[in-house]
């Protein structure tokens, strides 16, 4: 009896030690994950803050070694992100509407949903290659339009996904109540479903904006870069990510400093968008 007793406490102790070790390891893993986030943000802040001044927002990207700002790149990024989002959002919302409201889980709907999820995680550089073949080769030169199209193609799957998710959360009773009053389906969807899901869909659009505003690879193949002020989407267009890429890898100190400034700017904007859109989503969950 005594033997059994001692055996089981021994075993119990070992189980407890294993448990404690694993718990400690999982806490360590969490700290490890947060550590990188803190380190990256700190690096950006300490290196980039010196470049955040009026010059950054008022002057063009300089020639090698010179002083200047990022005005043309900021403008190009904002413009292409805006056009890409404005073009991609309605497409994404309508495609998502089909999946959530019309497909009733049929084969076609399942296939589209599946493909959409693949596109959502597909490497963005592939999208860049696609648009390069589609537009740049045909037009014979890099252009802002090609950049917009590439960004729109990246926006679409994000918006489709959130639209489907959000419309699926709308209670069917709402739709049935409207339908019982004789409301045609398109009105039920636009007046009832969309309104009920509005905040969630808005979150999706903001997340899509956050996603595309940091995209570099697809722009490298489409909009490329432009050292000068340019508002013509038919010509190569400066944009923050590509400028950061080129300046950071250059041997000039001034250029590298500007790259850090741009990196801080872009990250701050994206993190802000992320936080705002997520708190918006929570607001709608509370309702």
């Amino acid at each position, binding site marked *: 009896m005594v033997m059994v007793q001692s055996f089981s406490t021994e075993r119990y102790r070992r189980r407890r030690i294993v448990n404690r070790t694993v718990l400690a390891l999982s*806490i360590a893993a969490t700290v490890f994950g947060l550590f990188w*986030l803190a380190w990256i943000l700190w690096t950006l802040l300490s290196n980039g803050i010196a470049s955040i001044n009026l010059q950054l927002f008022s002057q063009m990207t300089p020639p090698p070694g010179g002083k200047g700002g990022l005005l043309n790149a900021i403008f190009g990024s904002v413009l292409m992100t805006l056009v890409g989002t404005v073009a991609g959002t309605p497409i994404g919302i309508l495609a998502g509407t089909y999946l959530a409201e019309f497909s009733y889980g049929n084969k076609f709907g399942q296939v589209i949903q599946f493909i959409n999820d*693949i*596109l959502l995680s597909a490497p963005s550089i592939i999208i860049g*290659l696609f648009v390069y073949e589609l537009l740049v080769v045909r037009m014979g030169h890099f252009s802002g339009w090609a950049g917009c199209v590439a960004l729109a193609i990246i926006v679409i799957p994000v918006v489709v996904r959130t639209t489907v998710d959000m419309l699926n959360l709308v209670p069917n009773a709402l739709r049935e109540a409207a339908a019982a009053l004789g409301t045609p389906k398109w009105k039920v969807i636009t007046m009832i479903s969309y309104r009920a899901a509005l905040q969630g869909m808005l979150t999706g659009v903001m997340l899509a904006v956050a996603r595309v505003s*940091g995209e*570099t690879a697809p722009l490298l193949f489409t909009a490329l870069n432009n050292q000068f002020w340019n508002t013509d989407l038919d010509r190569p267009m400066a944009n923050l990510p590509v400028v950061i890429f080129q300046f950071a890898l250059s041997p000039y100190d001034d250029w590298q400093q500007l790259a850090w400034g741009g*990196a801080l700017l872009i990250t701050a904007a*994206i993190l802000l968008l992320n936080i705002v859109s997520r708190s918006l989503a929570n607001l709608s969950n509370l309702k």
Partner: protein
Amino acid sequence: MSGQNVADKLFFGATVGFACLVLLILCGVIFSLVSGAAPALRTFGFGFLTSEVWNPVTEKFGAAVPIYGTLVTSIIAMIIGIPVSFGIAFFITELCPPILKRPLGIAIELLAGIPSIIYGIWGLFVLAPILQSTVQPFLINTLGNIPVIGNLFAGPPLGIGVLTAGIILGIMVLPFITSIMRDVFETVPPMLKESAYGLGATTWEVAWNVVLPYTRVGVIGGIMLGLGRAMGETMAVTFVIGNAHRIATSLMAPGATISSALANEFTEAVGDTYLSSLIALGFVLFVITFLVLTAAKIMLIRLQRQTGS
């Protein structure tokens, strides 16, 4: 009434049309890659996949080096990413005090939100010098002396290279794998866990013997999704891998991945064969990631069916 009918038809038509557009985009991607890659594939045949040569001067190209680089960096990323993601997901779902759950979730999302180029610039200017001065000499002096494995850790500490790229990829895939693991862990019915606790199981035993077997398919799906991300990641890798077209046994040596070769060389490529070879590389990347992502998706769908959610 007929006006409403027309509006209904138009609206339905628009939604179907744009749903088809999603399909069209995928077809367009495949078609444009195939047609762009055709000249190179016709010239080099299947040898393109196995040849190590990458010589713009003689216009001889092979994909073996970038494919190797893509696989090795992704494997390193998974070695780092999987256990850490599991740890974080385990902490969030089983241990974390409720008040910390949301801030932690947001922090993980922010890590996912940081653009790839930021990881790149940070990796090149901050992480690589630190690896060069501390971690790499340590690895070379310890693991480098072991007979067979030592070859992986031989050579001078350059800072940039395959290992550094793998480490950064590991950090980048953390949030993706973590958030999927967290989501699938939360699908486990509380009843299952409680009955295990009722039998006297420890937290770890519940996680290992109840939660993990129940969510296995989903966990593997999440890992594959992370793998797909790691393989296609471009800018972060481009900054730190060194872009050298040769296969070195040492992980410290510079190398190239498919995406880094594309980002580095595409805009400077002259000559149709060169450009076509780069597009062929893109096609190879597309095929690999497509297969991995499809497998991931199928597994996640299977878990969904199983839990009925």
